[in-house]
């Protein structure tokens, strides 16, 4: 190969890999991201049917009901609106009534959120930033009280 051909081969290969990678990244960014929604947004109908999303807020005090087969029902609130959530599995250690929670799943036809995952945190005074922001929007958040963002 001549010098020019070598250079072209090299640039061509790099370009090809970059193009494939960019394609993969853009496709995945379109299809594989999950939006974070507050109960208010869910109630306002901002969620497309069948869309998987993250629902975050506070676990409403007194709303946790444990049923057979490790099914748990609870209510997530942002102070203004609520969404009923059902989850099958074992709840993380730091799941507590009145505390912040982030769940991942889909809305069922009846308006109940079926959570495939309830996210755990390492830190008891840690409030997921998204939850803190949505609580602030609803005026429920008070700085310095309990959890810190």
């Amino acid at each position, binding site marked *: *190969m001549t*010098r020019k051909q*070598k*250079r072209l*081969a*090299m640039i061509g*290969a*790099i370009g090809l*890999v*970059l193009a494939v*990678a960019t394609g*993969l*990244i853009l*496709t*995945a*960014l379109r299809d*594989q*991201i*999950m*939006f*974070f929604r507050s109960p208010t947004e869910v109630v306002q109908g901002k969620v497309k049917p069948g869309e998987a999303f*993250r629902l975050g807020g506070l676990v409403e005090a007194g709303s946790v009901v444990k049923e*057979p*087969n*490790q099914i748990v029902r609870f209510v997530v609130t942002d102070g203004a609106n609520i969404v009923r959530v059902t989850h*099958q*599995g*074992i*709840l*993380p*250690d*730091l799941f507590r009534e009145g505390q912040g929670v*982030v769940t*991942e799943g889909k809305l069922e036809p009846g308006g109940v959120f079926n959570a495939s995952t309830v*996210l*755990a*945190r*390492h*830190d*008891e005074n*840690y409030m*997921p*930033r*998204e939850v803190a*922001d949505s609580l602030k929007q609803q005026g429920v958040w008070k700085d310095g009280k309990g959890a810190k*963002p």
Partner: protein
Amino acid sequence: MIVELGHFALILGFAVALFQATVPLWGAIRGDAVLARLGSQAALVHFALVALSFAALTHAYLVSDFSVLNVFQNSHSLKPLIYKWSGVWGNHEGSMLLWVLILALFGAGVAVFSKRLPDDMLGATLGVQGLIASAFCAFLIFASNPFLRMPNPPIEGRDLNPVLQDPGLAIHPPLLYLGYVGFSIVFSFAAAALILGRVDAAFARMIRPWTLAAWITLTLGIAMGSYWAYYELGWGGYWFWDPVENASLMPWLTGTALLHSAIVLEKREALKTWTILLAVVTFSLSLLGTFLVRSGVLTSVHAFAVDPERGLFILLILIAFIGGSFALFAARASALQGGGLFAPISREGALVFNNLFLSVASLAVFVGTLYPLLLEALTGAKISVGPPFFNLTAVPLMVPLFLAIPFGQKLAWKRGDLLGAGQRLWICMVLGVAGAAISAYATGGGPILALAGIGLGIFLVLGALDDLLDRALRGGIGLIGARLRAIPQSITAMALAHAGAGLMVIGISATAFETEKIAAMKPGETLALDGYTLRLEGIGPVTGPNYNAIAAEFSLRDPAGAELARLRPAKRVYIGRQMPTSEVGRYRHGLSEIYVAIGETSDGQHVDLRAYHKPYVLLIWLGPLLMSIGGILSLLDRRLRIGVPARRARLRPEPAE
């Protein structure tokens, strides 16, 4: 008193760092060897002062001095000694002090081990290292001071986050920081080379041991963190594509690329600007990682002691160093003389292939990690980019790389013979496919991608080791022993590191064949798990030094009915913070594990539990362990060190100092 001594030592260390950042650098640029050489002394004094400061904070933790705010917030007198000690870096201030200590350690390392560097190179490198040290010392002293006293000392501390009360805390953060921060010295070398306009084979030899040392510890640190999350978080995951994990993976990917591109620079004097760029990018990504972890701008499951305001300070340091180094790069890189082009089918061609895929994979991780921040800033929409994104981008980009590794190992410099390499690797490929077929038969089918992954892993392990076999057999049967001994250590190192990557691929693929059972059990009930039987023997309270727990005792029986082990997963509540954590029960057989975690046992009658059988799961961490063993072997290869002084014959025993 000791605390004030530590505080004072830190301030003095800051002053020495400022000296180190200016005088030797000026000496290097002006060509004044005496001033440039002062960098060594400054680096050693700076290290001694920071070490003294760190020792003072450690002392405050060990004696539970709650008059120190940091100790009060993160320690408890009942805490076992190992957690008092490792708790020093289990919080923001202490972990930043550890960061600065390791930064100083690498500066001192250059002062001690690289005495034979040219004067100007030494001065400029230690000068840049001093700049980084000054910035982070300032951050510690003005924004994250661990030595602040409290006016009215309380009697008891608030305890350390229980999740962190684990031997993992003693190992994982120091290893990870050694890796992260270790790349700082490579960055300093690169900046010095740019300032002095000298990038050549000698430069590649200079940075080699430091890049390797940082890479080894970063590999071990990430693997250790993954293993810790696996047994601590109670749901058996080993990698979540969480922002904090990605923050450590990005410098690892570019650091691995740097390790390989430096070889091309050393052997062929090519890829000069690229190698420099990688050195700059790798440390920039380490800084970015520090910022992401410390500021909490991204929601993570592993975030501890985050503080958004201090994040801003780190962001400024980040912008200054990344911006400064890229400006320097833009100004000086064009002056570097380009190396020759080379044939695509050659060792250097293969290493370019490696660099291309590692960097692009790193780019994919970068986009996925930072896209939520960008989108929120632009549109206000809050999104999360989870495992599906990375499984569709970074993972497919790694597959061609893994496939190519055994070929690359067999190609010669300048002009390789792909067909010749392929002839030997055919057998490895056939064995890989056979391995996948056997797994499919043994598990009764299974996801095709996981089977392909197992085949790929087997091919990679065999292909990597085939190089050693080939070399050993070249001289005929009688010479195997002699030929094996004649294999250069760095060749063995490469084979082991690549085989380690293969083992990890097998381990990750095998997770597709795990079994998960979720159940509620009463004492006396049994649960079948892939032929094994778990029987709940009882539930009872357990008291620990600083926690109370409810533990469940299970007996584990094999298919024949013989008892293998007793597993005691527990739910602990720590006295200091009244915070619950899970302890899992595990039984290892071969490379596989039985893993049991329990949920709440509120009524005392039955427990909710999650039980897993995880085949070959330990390979996920043994692979990286083998990779780092390869790295250590390579680091110890005396042939590759610069300026190894010939060992003087000792005429008489010297007295100990």
